[in-house]
């Protein structure tokens, strides 16, 4: 029975999502109840995870791991899901996609992510991944009357299935060469003497890179992010990245730890390619969601630069990067949710023109977030990059550091281009002010965090520094 307590959060989440589905069908006007209950479910799951013991435990025949990394990432996933749900409430209502299924599918996707984060076995990981992916396909096409949304869902499905295929092929090779799906056993059997097994790693990395949308496997990202409803886009840019990054860390540092020299160059390449693509391709964008897609590719590139170092401080720096990225993107999407006039949402960058005159407070918040995304000190975004480059230079990977910092200059260009539109251009009609307190709190909260992060940067480091893989 001991086992049950370790996987209780997942069991609880699974049961309550099914319960909510049934409840929503049978209750009249069930959507309000479901909305509230979804948040309560997530909070309770989070509480269950936090109360778990701090030691590293592997259960279910060593296929499922609970350690500092998984606990931290799970809490992060759940916490930011709450924020995303709160901030997109108004959007869902106005676009008439405020359905029971939406909440339930998000819960199911969360379940998949929790399993991914804790997986210590190829098959368990695959189960989690598929559960999550299938939910995400549905979410992408949730605005089913709209051509773009349907297209996004289909595109995501087709391309992502391809990646899953590659991943599975890699898994089967690994199983063939090492004789197990368990991470520990793979790790001991996979070494540089077993070169053919290294071959399999390429497939696994490509498959995973696809899921995180690292260049050059990013093709689906801009289209899917643009086509999906904005609430889903904001979910996409935040939550699946947490799970995918955790899985990446786990794969690289546990089963593949003996072949670090082989995968390191691949990850460095992926990181550099994403940083360059993320900064250059975003320059020409006019749609803000598309721009955020490219920006997220770039940001993932930086996060992976940390992983590429192969050290504990590297992992910690990329986790710090991830957390700060989440806060910044949450704020940015809160701003995008506020771009509405008379129940219609706008997505074009030019619609922001002269925002500083019409909505000065929103403009100021956006300004802070954009400068932070560009990594200008003393805002939080700078510290995120700073930790990454600390770790990268510690490992003497100077080319990676130099390219990384040069691309921040290029990417600064498109962020300040938005600031230019907001602050220097002639004003258009003002956006409606929102009365949704959730959205407002999230915008101001994230902005405040970004602004005052420099006063006490140790807090985040203290939390993250307990996470070690080796």
């Amino acid at each position, binding site marked *: 029975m001991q086992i049950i307590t370790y996987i209780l959060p997942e069991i609880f989440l699974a049961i309550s999502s099914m319960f909510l589905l049934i409840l929503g069908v049978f209750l009249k006007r069930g959507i309000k109840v479901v909305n509230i209950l979804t948040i309560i479910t997530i909070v309770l799951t989070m509480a269950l995870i936090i109360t778990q013991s701090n030691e590293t435990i592997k259960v279910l025949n060593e296929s499922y791991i609970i350690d500092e990394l998984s606990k931290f990432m799970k809490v992060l996933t759940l916490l930011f899901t709450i924020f995303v749900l709160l901030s997109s409430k108004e959007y869902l209502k106005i676009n008439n996609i405020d359905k029971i299924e939406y909440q339930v599918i998000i819960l199911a996707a969360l379940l998949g992510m929790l399993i991914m984060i804790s997986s210590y076995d190829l098959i368990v990981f695959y189960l989690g991944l598929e559960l999550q992916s299938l939910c995400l396909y549905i979410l992408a096409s949730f605005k089913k009357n709209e051509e773009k949304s349907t297209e996004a869902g289909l595109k995501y499905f087709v391309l992502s299935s391809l990646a899953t295929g590659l991943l599975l092929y890699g898994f089967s090779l690994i199983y063939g060469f090492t004789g197990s799906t368990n991470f520990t056993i793979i790790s001991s059997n996979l070494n540089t003497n077993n070169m053919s097994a290294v071959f399999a790693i390429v497939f696994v990395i490509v498959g995973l890179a696809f899921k995180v949308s690292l260049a050059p496997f990013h093709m689906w990202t801009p289209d899917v992010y643009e086509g999906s409803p904005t609430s889903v886009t904001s979910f996409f840019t935040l939550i699946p990245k947490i799970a995918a990054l955790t899985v990446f860390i786990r794969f690289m540092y546990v089963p593949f730890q003996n072949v670090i020299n082989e995968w390191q160059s691949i990850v460095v390449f992926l990181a550099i390619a994403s940083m360059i693509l993320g900064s250059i391709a975003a320059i020409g964008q006019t749609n803000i969601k598309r721009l955020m897609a490219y920006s997220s590719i770039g940001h993932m590139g930086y996060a992976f630069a940390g992983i590429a170092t192969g050290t504990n401080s590297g992992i910690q720096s990329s986790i710090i990067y991830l957390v700060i990225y989440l806060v910044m993107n949450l704020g940015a999407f809160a701003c995008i949710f506020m771009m509405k006039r008379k129940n219609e949402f706008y997505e074009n960058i030019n619609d922001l023109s002269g925002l500083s005159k019409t909505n000065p407070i929103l403009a100021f918040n956006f300004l802070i977030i954009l400068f932070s995304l560009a990594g*200008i*000190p003393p805002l939080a975004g700078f510290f995120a990059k700073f930790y990454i480059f600390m770790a990268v*230079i510690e490992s003497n990977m100077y080319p990676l550091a130099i390219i990384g*910092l*040069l691309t*921040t200059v290029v990417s600064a260009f498109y962020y*300040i281009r938005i600031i*230019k539109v907001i602050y220097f251009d002639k004003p258009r009609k003002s956006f409606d002010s929102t009365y949704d307190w959730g959205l407002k709190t999230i915008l101001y909260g994230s902005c405040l965090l970004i602004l005052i992060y420099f006063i006490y940067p*140790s807090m985040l480091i203290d939390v993250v520094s307990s996470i070690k893989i080796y």
Partner: protein
Amino acid sequence: MNFPILSAIIFIPMFGAFFILITQGNEKNVEKNSRYVAIFSSSVNFFLSLFLWFNFDTQTSEFQFVENKKWIDGFINFQLGIDGISMLFILLTTFITPICIFSGINSIKFKIKEFLIAILVMETLILGVFCSLDLIVFYLFFEGCLIPMFLIIGIWGGERKVYSAFKFFLYTLLGSVLMLIAIISIYWISGTTDVIKLLEINIPTEYQFVLWLAFFSSFAVKMPMWPLHTWLPDAHVEAPTAGSVILAAILLKMAGYGFLRFSIGLFPIASNYFTPLIFSLSIIAIIYTSLIALMQNDMKKLIAYSSVAHMGFVTIGIFSLTKQAVEGSIFQMISHGLISAALFLCVGVLYDRYHSREISSYGGLVSVMPKYAVLFMIFTLGALGLPGTSGFVGEFLVLIGAFQKNILVAVLASIGIILAASYMLWLYKRIIFGKLPNVDLKEMKDLNNTELLILFSLAFLILFFGFYPEPLLNTVDITVSNLIDNYQLNLNSYMQEIKN
């Protein structure tokens, strides 16, 4: 003394900005109140820094008023402290900022509240640069200046403001990211970013050259040195008057300060090695940009190019590394801070009245604006380095120092003085003397009280320090000798090493 006076000086403007940010109410009241807050906080800051100066011990080369707080656990401390060099720059900053605020209130027509916030935040960041004794903290403040300056140029600038703001932002950002890599490398090489400790331990010679170049890339853009100066004329021309003043008077000095504190202090051997590079770039800057300045039709552009030329003197002085030259270049920076501020304000006075920066649209102003003509004369003479103005003292000391080091450099640099005289006097002649080219010019009003007060105080200081430079030189004296002693010590031991 336990009172954290440096933190107070740094963060008072920030609090002022915060107060302005949260003031609510009808627009008139908000504007009025934010003016009061801005003037109040910046002048309090000025008096605090005067107080700091009186308490400053000129007999020691140690860092004074040091504050040290835990910041990022384990590796970075938030450390502040000043020596003679930073003392002068702090005074310059706290003196120029109220002037910018007065001038902004006078000439900025919209979004005054935001403008004042930007200026005050800017002051905080600049003071942070001059006070910080940790490389990371320094970088934080150094880079942070980009945000308010970008907004000042972009929002209140002229017609091509967007282009100029972008050019300014990207140029300086590109320069400084390399410095960030260098700073992080220093951390991993020597285990600390604490400047006091770093000045004591020597950074291994083989790293010094690369690190020096990385720092150089940042400071050379900011200074600006030829051929990286092209952002400066654009930024100056399009920025509002107050923006130009801050840019020319204080922002450029951060680079000179950086050279003195970091390039020479931390990498003495590399500094010695690269001196010919600096000398040649500076000589080109002096002669080439002076010639360009001669041909300008736009007053602000002319002054901007002359700034580049004057900064050329500063870099020559710094890297001559004799006591006179270094003191001279510090003096030159302060004096240029006063003179260029005054000149940009003078241009601003004309622009506010006639909305043109073209030299050809003016002429014969002496008959309509006599007070203006007198003050402008003083600043012109200061800019060309006439004895009796502060401009002379700086250039003279630099040339004496450079002469000891390299005669050719000194001779070529003095050509710059002649050129400076020609473009400044020609500018003066075209604007102030001659016939009125336009009937409208007769309507021009002479200086109002605020402008008179600002320009008069600047003129007073320029003349005062021209005749009596002692207070300034006395402040930096010990610091500079210590800097040069350290440099020589390092160099000698290195030469010894090579011989062995």
